């Protein structure tokens, strides 16, 4: 590595006022877009890419990376405050983020999310800088066998997010996987469960389902609680934000979660087709598994928020690895970035490290700057964001509903998606009422298509002989880890149930 060139590239990027301004504007726009349910970082980058046409390469890349990093963090704001993840990769943040907000710790949850996002992003950027050629080489060896087992590995996390009843968690997961099969089948284009409805041919849109299951279901349940007298309509958080960054005690507590989350996020992000949405659940399950108090996860603890948000932003660095070193985008945002590079006359790939090394180093620096910009925007905005929850519930619920329904519409500009959103709102409300966990559906919706496509591809390539999988060592490695995760999660869940039963028995005796 040419250290002199690396440092001079960092200095050039960090001292260029245009790049600084563009990255800061990008981060602000990204945070705002990410916070709106239905608006993803991909949409943000796609919407704002025309603004970068007239700029030089590095300011324009700074703008786009700012949106990318800002959008990744922004998704956590609505997940924490209104139970509606702004982006799919913020879906796991609500597991602990929203309960924290309900306990009156919305500001703390937001600051932990912001700090973890920043650290995760920095870890991703550092790993990208030093390991990019190596990691990309390993990830690019993945065939359908490895991708199938990666999906299975991702699904093994379900047990640890199933809550008290593993059977209910697995029913939810299989239901989610079944939902993925609605529409044209990916290999032969045969219609499945479309019932003659044209809008179902393309399958269910992920975002309307997500918004329905979480936000709309929460509004229906909230109205039910208020009318039944179980919640006050005037209830509002009186939390005062005294600091925008987490205190030293919290940082010490979440440090290991941030570190592992950042590393997990970077490596998963480096695998083309596997992005933040998978990484956050893997990181959550991993950190819950190694925790001394797994029973506290899901009840609103900063560790849960830190493990998901660091993995989420770690992915941004990871996804850049195959983009820069092989010219293959790691996710949808880097696919748009690839277009931006080509537009500027630069072809990412192995030759870029030979002919455009200064540009490569400037991109590394721009990603670091984008994370810093996201932290600044986040610090400035925490107090404003936390004000949202200080609204009375009787005003907040209807506002959440109309914003969510519009978010569902905005994805495909299709009224059918609002219907899907409402339908899944009802499903989510019923599932909550009868204690079926929602998160496994989410994970299944993310991993289902990847699982099916690679399963079919693998079986086709091997003439229907699944036993051929033993000839793929990395795939077997993923499978062994998946089995380990399942066994570990089962033992962990048993311990949690025993502790809770003991606590309940103690309570009854008292």
């Amino acid at each position, binding site marked *: 590595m040419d250290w002199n060139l690396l440092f001079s590239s960092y200095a050039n990027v960090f001292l260029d006022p245009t790049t600084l301004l563009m990255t800061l504007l990008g981060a602000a726009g990204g945070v705002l*877009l990410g916070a709106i349910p239905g608006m993803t970082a991909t949409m943000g980058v796609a*919407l704002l890419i025309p603004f970068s046409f007239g700029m030089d390469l590095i300011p324009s890349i700074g703008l786009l990376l700012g949106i990318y990093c800002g959008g990744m963090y922004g998704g956590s704001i609505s997940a924490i405050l209104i139970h509606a993840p702004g982006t799919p990769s913020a879906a796991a943040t609500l597991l602990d983020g929203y309960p924290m907000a309900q306990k009156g710790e919305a500001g703390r949850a937001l600051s932990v999310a912001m700090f973890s996002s920043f650290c995760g992003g920095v870890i991703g950027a550092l790993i990208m800088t030093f390991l990019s050629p190596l990691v990309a080489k390993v990830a690019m060896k993945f065939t359908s066998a490895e991708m199938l087992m990666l999906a299975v590995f991702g699904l093994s996390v379900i047990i640890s997010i199933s809550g*008290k*009843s593993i*059977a*209910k968690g*697995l*029913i939810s997961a*299989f239901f989610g*996987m*079944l939902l993925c*099969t609605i529409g044209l*089948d990916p*290999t*032969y284009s*045969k219609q*499945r*469960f479309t019932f003659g409805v044209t809008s179902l041919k393309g399958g269910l849109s992920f975002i309307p389902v997500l918004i329905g299951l979480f936000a*709309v279901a929460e*509004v*229906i*349940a909230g*109205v*039910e609680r*208020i*009318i*039944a007298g179980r919640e006050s*309509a*005037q209830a509002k958080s009186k939390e005062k934000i005294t600091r925008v960054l987490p205190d030293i005690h919290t940082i010490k507590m979440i440090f290991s979660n941030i570190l592992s989350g950042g590393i997990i996020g970077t490596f998963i992000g480096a695998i083309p087709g596997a992005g933040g949405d998978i990484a956050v659940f893997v990181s959550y399950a991993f950190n819950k598994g190694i925790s001394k108090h797994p029973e506290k996860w899901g009840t609103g603890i900063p560790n849960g928020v830190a493990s998901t948000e660091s993995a989420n932003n770690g992915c941004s660095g990871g996804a850049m690895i195959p983009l820069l070193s092989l010219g293959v985008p790691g996710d949808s945002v880097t696919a748009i970035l690839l277009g931006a590079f080509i537009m500027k006359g630069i072809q990412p790939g192995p030759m870029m490290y030979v002919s455009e090394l200064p540009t490569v180093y400037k991109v590394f620096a721009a990603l670091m700057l984008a994370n810093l910009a996201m932290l600044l925007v986040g610090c400035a905005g925490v107090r404003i964001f936390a004000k949202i929850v200080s609204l*009375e*519930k*009787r*005003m907040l*619920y*209807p*506002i959440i*509903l*109309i*914003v969510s329904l*519009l978010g569902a*519409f*905005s994805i495909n*500009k299709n*009224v059918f998606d*609002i219907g899907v959103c*409402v339908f899944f*709102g*009802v499903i989510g*409300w019923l599932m909550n*009422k*009868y*204690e079926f966990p929602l998160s496994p559906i989410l994970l299944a919706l993310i991993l289902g298509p990847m699982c*099916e496509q690679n*399963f*079919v591809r693998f*079986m*086709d390539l091997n003439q*229907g002989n699944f036993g051929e999988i033993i000839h793929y060592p990395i795939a077997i490695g993923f499978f062994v880890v998946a089995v380990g995760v399942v066994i570990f999660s089962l033992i962990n869940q048993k311990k949690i149930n025993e502790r*809770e039963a003991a606590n309940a028995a103690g309570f*009854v005796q008292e």
Partner: protein
Amino acid sequence: MEIKKTQTKAFSNLIVSALLIVFEIWAWIQSNAIKTAKSATVQPATFPRIMIIGMGVFTAILFIQSIIKLIGMKAGDPLAQKAESMNVFKDRGTLAALFVIALCALYVYLFKNVGYVVVSFFLCAIIMWLIGLRSPAKLLSISILVPLGMWFVFYKFLTVNIPMGILQPLRDLVDKI
């Protein structure tokens, strides 16, 4: 007060799992309608059927677990607690939730023709009134300003074309400005 077995979470699990079994049978029958692909190693219906079987296995486990719990029910067991009610005649909360769902269904139906701002105004105002907001100033200002503000942001800055229905002239006016 002693809880009847039919009011417990174990009983509600039993009913839910029975309903799920019905759903799985229906889904299996529907999967028979999926066309086959010639010379395919994995047929288009295979993967959904694996999922239905998986769902069915764990539904059966839940069903059996619920029966066992109901037979040997002990006080203090989490499943011996009272389950959530769906009785609209006894539970006003459930009735209100169903009313909100009906409003949302109407919202979807009217969205395109009446327009986002107007249907959102009614949805927002009715729900706020339902859950106890009686101040006309707050009720009207939120119900008008939030949908209008959201429409403006989505239309002008995010270029999402939202149906305006009867308020179409407003969009024309914004376009002119």
